[in-house]
């Protein structure tokens, strides 16, 4: 027996869950979507993912090493998750230098300037994505079409996303029933056989990831279900009012980044609310803002903006929406 005994306050047991294990769990949940992107977009998807992950890790290391001068914590996995999500949110033919700039904005500006992990108000990957979208609008909106395990990268064949087809078509006075022939069928969209950002296309892969996140108890159902549910209800109402001007709810859920956003981006621990009541309100806000931007906004897709806008309200929501305490006195009339 060692002569020195530890004396510390209770509890003397720990659940063995760690930040690194949680981040590893998120990475595992992203793998199905990563494999389907490589399957559809081939070589380009590999280059984009590798560039984003490596540059996020390097930027985080450099800041911690030379500016924070604190122990290096890049192995906690959070920078890898940011890198993966950043890659998932861009087209697979995006030039390397733009990805590096996006990673810089994500890690250095959106995360480390606020103090690093746990302190950033906005989702770093989305800040990087929106920065790239605004700064490089052309490169960010040329979408490769799925071409199997192709070796094409910058030179890959491109086409419009279903959301852009609808947006453009409606602007040109066409009706949904005319446009429906130009967009993929729901089953094609479910399997990810359509143009779009590399990680957002395959609903099936994202849903597998969702199930894993729930089983592994990394996230709760509140945010994804309220995002998708509110979006479905809102688009159903619009569709019932005028099915010729508004796409059906199934299309809205499967097209674009709704699933990726609802399952992986909106649920980011650091930038989402801390209790179930606030989580549901936050999720509904994202769903409704997404529809508003898609239907009435200038951009065909609105998930990123919707999440970032709702991120800004999270501190207020944490302050004003409180869980009902155990034994809270019920006010009598």
């Amino acid at each position, binding site marked *: 027996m060692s002569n020195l*005994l*530890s004396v510390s306050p209770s509890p003397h047991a720990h659940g063995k869950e760690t*930040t690194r294990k949680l981040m590893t769990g998120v990475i595992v949940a992203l793998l199905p979507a990563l494999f389907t992107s490589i399957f559809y977009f081939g070589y380009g998807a590999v280059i984009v993912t590798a560039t984003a992950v490596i540059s996020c890790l390097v930027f985080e290391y450099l800041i911690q090493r030379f500016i924070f001068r604190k122990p290096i914590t890049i192995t906690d996995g959070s920078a890898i998750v940011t890198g993966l999500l950043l890659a998932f949110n861009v087209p697979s033919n995006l030039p390397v230098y733009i990805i590096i700039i996006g990673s810089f904005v994500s890690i250095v500006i959106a995360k480390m300037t606020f103090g690093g*992990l746990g302190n950033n108000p906005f989702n770093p990957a989305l800040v990087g994505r929106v920065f790239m979208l605004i700064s490089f609008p052309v490169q960010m909106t040329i979408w490769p079409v799925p071409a199997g395990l192709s070796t094409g990268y910058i030179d890959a064949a491109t086409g419009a996303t279903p959301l852009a087809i609808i947006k453009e078509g409606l602007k040109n006075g066409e009706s949904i029933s005319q446009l429906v022939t130009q967009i993929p069928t729901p089953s094609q969209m479910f399997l990810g056989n359509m143009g779009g950002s590399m990680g957002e296309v395959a609903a099936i892969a994202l849903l597998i990831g969702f199930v894993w996140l729930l089983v592994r108890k990394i996230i709760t159902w509140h945010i994804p279900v309220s995002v998708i549910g509110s979006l479905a209800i809102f688009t159903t109402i619009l569709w019932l009012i005028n099915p010729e001007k508004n796409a059906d709810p199934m299309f809205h859920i499967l097209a674009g980044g709704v699933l990726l956003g609802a399952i992986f981006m909106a649920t980011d*621990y650091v930038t989402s609310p801390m209790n179930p009541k606030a989580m549901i309100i936050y999720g509904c806000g994202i769903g409704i803002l997404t529809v508003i931007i898609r239907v009435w906004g200038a951009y065909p897709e609105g998930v990123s903006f919707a999440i970032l806008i709702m991120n800004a309200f999270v501190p207020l929501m*944490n302050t004003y929406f409180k869980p*009902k305490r155990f034994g809270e006195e019920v006010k009598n009339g």
Partner: protein
Amino acid sequence: MKTFPIGGVHPPENKLTAGSEIRYLPVPHSVAIPVNQHIGTPASIVVKKDDRVKTGQVIAENKGFVSSNIHSSVSGKVNKIGTVPDTTGYKQTAVFIDVEGDEWIVTIDRSDEILTEINLSPEEIVKKCLESGIVGLGGATFPSHVKLTVPSGKRCDLLIINGVECEPYLTSDHRLMLERGEEILIGVTILMKALRVNKAMIGIESNKPDAIDHLTNLAKAFQGITVYPLKVKYPQGAEKQLIKALAKREVPSGRLPIDVNTVVHNVGTAFAVYEAIQKNKPLFERVVTITGKSVSNPGNYFVRIGTPVKNLIEAAGGFPDDTGKIVSGGPMMGKALNSTEVPIVKGTSGIILFPSNESKRMDSMPCIRCAKCVQACALNLEPYLLMTLSEMGLFERAEKERITDCMECGSCSFICPAGRPLLDYIRLGKATVIKMARERVLK
């Protein structure tokens, strides 16, 4: 199966001694019996150096209503009135007795006969609990006679008996239910008589199926006692959580179970009440679990109050080589000891020896706001926020966030993936807020 609705965690159970029959620890050569083994005013000592005492004799008398008698657990000569370290690490007054033989006071019935007939009136039962030094044996050590005295204007219609034992490792209540089931049920009937209620619910977690079966069978012979299995979840043994789980009654913040017409007693207390009322035996020994993953001979023992912890550790085969921490109580709420001279007291439910690789906390990392602490809190508090407010000294805000509701069950620190010392800061904040509130009253 019933359980409480909000929060909770599932620590590994590690009930290593669930199959070990309770044995009697040999009477030690000397004991140190603290005079403050209960919540309330310490008892005042009525013996002096060189007095001869018998086992079961009063050595310190209750002072005021919320207090309790202390009895000698051995026979022999008072060596000194001195100080002994207790579980908190502070020294406190104790009566030291050198043991000579084991002569019990004559009034104690030492036969094995089980006495079912209850002859005392409710008032006499309450008085006898006070005289026999009965306190809550679940760990809080609140004097039982106080709980049995329903304040005027309040009403009690339900007795809940706590056989949950939700703390990992501990098995003292489990073994007692298996080996002294009938005595416990008679004790419950005595408590029901004292409270004038005709309904008692015994809650036992489903990881003790043998105890559930045993007591359910025995309870058929008793009026008004029902046994309920509960889904395993920590902290189910907390009074308010147990009342919610069994009776769906929610004790309001800052109030007591009696405010929802309920009284809760532990199974160990029910057994002690049986012995006091039926056998005239005051509370001078209790069941203690000695356990740990590397302990060679873990077990459950009847231990005389005042026995040093080291005697119990020796009985279990001595210190394992890798011992890194000694904990009195369970791993979730127990206290780490800084000395093996600490005596076993009425509130000691177990002694756990942790190997050194489980004795150190993990490094504290930044909060990633995963909200697992919020989900784990059985009171729906926000531990991350309470910690930050305490850290920053914002105690008025912490008070509004109900920091004083916290029962310090430790679920938040247990679950935190960043290994943050949530409960340490919440304790600091809670103590400060309580002090602030007291000063406000004095002004």
